């Protein structure tokens, strides 16, 4: 049971000079591509074109080879396929092995990984193995005039953005879903498929006992978030909000006081000490807009607030500030959206 520092992380097996191209690590969810993979491909294509280089994808999993065509049609020039039964279990260490084999073959200069829970599990292992820099949750990526690869990420809960340079190659970045856009699909576009030998299939230590699928999306991925604050009178009233959220496909968030009172789980907390969210539409119900909360939602595309108090701080940062009773608003919006939905179906 003794633990030793493994050779991993010494980075001595990597040839820095000859690295070229942008690699995207495909994020596989239930045998299909997670939408973030195509988004990363969109950005990778743009980066590669600006750098006059190519885009590759590392596609590892069990029975995933067929996904290559979608990748070509969304901008990949080359797809490295590592198809192994062993990868049927999501084990960060075995996936890391698979990607390291591909990275050794492809020698990319930049590696982009989805900031899903899978991507966030694998990326640190790859970075530690290669002893290279890894920047989390990038909101933009570019090459500067000198050809440095720059990664932009919000710094420490402020409205400051740090532009980060990696002194080592490959530079690695994770990007949250929804940050970049896929390119328009080009039907019939093809590329080169590189099938990795089965002899490189890794063996892992983790064993899957069972898997349960579920549908709830992480609040940070939601397009629309309805956040409730102290204006809500009773814990039971959250059900009214959840019903509305279901109709419009929104996630429900809460301010810290509601989480502290045990009305909502911590993972639904929006704010500095909870989740930083930037949905397309943020709807705050009975949220006053404390600085702590605002830091967690100010980058939302459109901010709607419903508040009795016209002087609440959130009014100033709202695109639409509805001054009125949140219960009346919930009732009317529920009725109207239900009516519209039933008309469509």
């Amino acid at each position, binding site marked *: 049971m003794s633990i030793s520092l493994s050779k991993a992380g010494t980075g001595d097996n990597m040839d820095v000079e000859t690295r070229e191209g942008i690699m995207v690590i495909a994020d596989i969810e239930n045998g299909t591509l997670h939408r973030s993979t195509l988004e990363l491909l969109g950005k990778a294509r743009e980066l590669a074109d600006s750098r006059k280089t190519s885009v590759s994808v590392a596609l590892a999993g069990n029975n995933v080879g067929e996904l290559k065509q979608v990748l070509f049609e969304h901008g990949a020039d080359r797809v490295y396929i590592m198809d192994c039964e062993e990868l049927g279990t999501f084990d960060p260490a075995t996936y890391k092995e698979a990607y390291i084999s591909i990275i050794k073959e492809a020698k990319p200069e930049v590696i982009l990984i989805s900031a899903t829970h899978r991507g966030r599990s694998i990326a640190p292992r790859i970075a530690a193995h290669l*002893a290279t820099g*890894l920047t989390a949750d990038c909101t933009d990526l570019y090459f500067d005039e000198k050809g440095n690869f720059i990664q932009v990420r919000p710094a420490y809960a*402020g409205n400051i953005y740090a*532009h980060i340079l990696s002194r080592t190659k490959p530079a690695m970045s994770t990007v949250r879903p929804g940050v970049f856009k896929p390119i328009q699909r080009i039907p019939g576009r093809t590329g080169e498929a590189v099938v990795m030998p089965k002899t490189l299939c890794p063996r892992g230590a983790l064993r899957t006992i069972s898997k349960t699928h579920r549908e709830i999306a992480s609040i940070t991925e939601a397009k629309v978030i309805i956040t409730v604050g102290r204006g809500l009178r009773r814990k039971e009233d959250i059900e009214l909000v959840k019903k509305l959220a279901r109709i419009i496909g929104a996630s429900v968030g809460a301010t810290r006081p509601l989480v502290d009172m045990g009305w909502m789980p911590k993972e639904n907390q929006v704010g500095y000490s909870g989740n930083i969210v930037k949905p397309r539409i943020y709807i705050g119900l009975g949220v006053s807009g404390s600085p702590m909360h605002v830091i967690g939602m100010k980058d939302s595309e459109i901010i709607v607030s419903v508040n009795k108090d016209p002087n609440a701080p959130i009014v100033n940062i709202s695109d639409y500030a509805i001054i009125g009773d949140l219960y009346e608003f919930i009732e009317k919006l529920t009725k109207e959206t239900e009516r519209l939905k039933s008309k469509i179906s």
Partner: protein
Amino acid sequence: MQKNQVAAGCDYVNFRIVVLMKPTPDPDKVRFDAEKGTIIREGVELIINPYDLPAIELAVQVKEKLGGEVIVISMAPPQGEEALRDAIARGADRAILLTDRRFAGADTLATSYALASAIRKLGNVNLVIGGEKSIDGDTAQVPGEVAEMLGLPHVSYVSRLIDIDYSRAIVESDLESEVVTYEAPLPCVLQVTLNVAKPRIPTIKGKLQARKAIVEKWSADALADIADINRFGIKGSPTMVYRVVIPKEKERKRIILDTEQGVKAVVDLLMKEGLL
């Protein structure tokens, strides 16, 4: 045979659990510089990163079941000591603070290297537990990097520990679209979410113990025999801030509406997004 011996209690006192803990500024006491849009760090005390509290609690629960000891390790400036004392009040047996100017300026790779080196230095570690992420850095990278540097398996986003014995842990991992139950051999690294355990409130006795406890301070030299000190701190950090940009705050429309108008406006927005 060997397993039975362990189960019979011959070896249990040696079960070593390490918790990786980051002392972070107290989010409730942090003040903001409205001009610069940053938080004011000066004079803000360092507390246990809220995401690490469930990690400490889980470690203590495992110790209560299997025996052994809980060792909390942090890398921080000297004022991180108070957070480590708090960890002792919450049930940790030992606290180690990696503190040295040579650790300063570390990015996640150099931080992970220092922490992994400390674990290696301790030796005979059976389980390493880390929180999901830190409230300030928010990268969620350290436990996975430490696992890789130690050559250990790891499970991330662990939302429940179903069972554990001296040879393996059965855990539930929250991978967003699915919840996977794994069997992981020990030693391994578990990166746990807030749901994994409800942190207990320190007892008076615990607080008294913590006040008297010695927080061990390890410098870079303390790790020099097993680590490359050039991989610590800013020297060992491949990423660097190239420049800092203060973006213009988005101009908001600030349209004031009554409830009727508001419902109509929101319906229009949802339709534009294709949600209705």
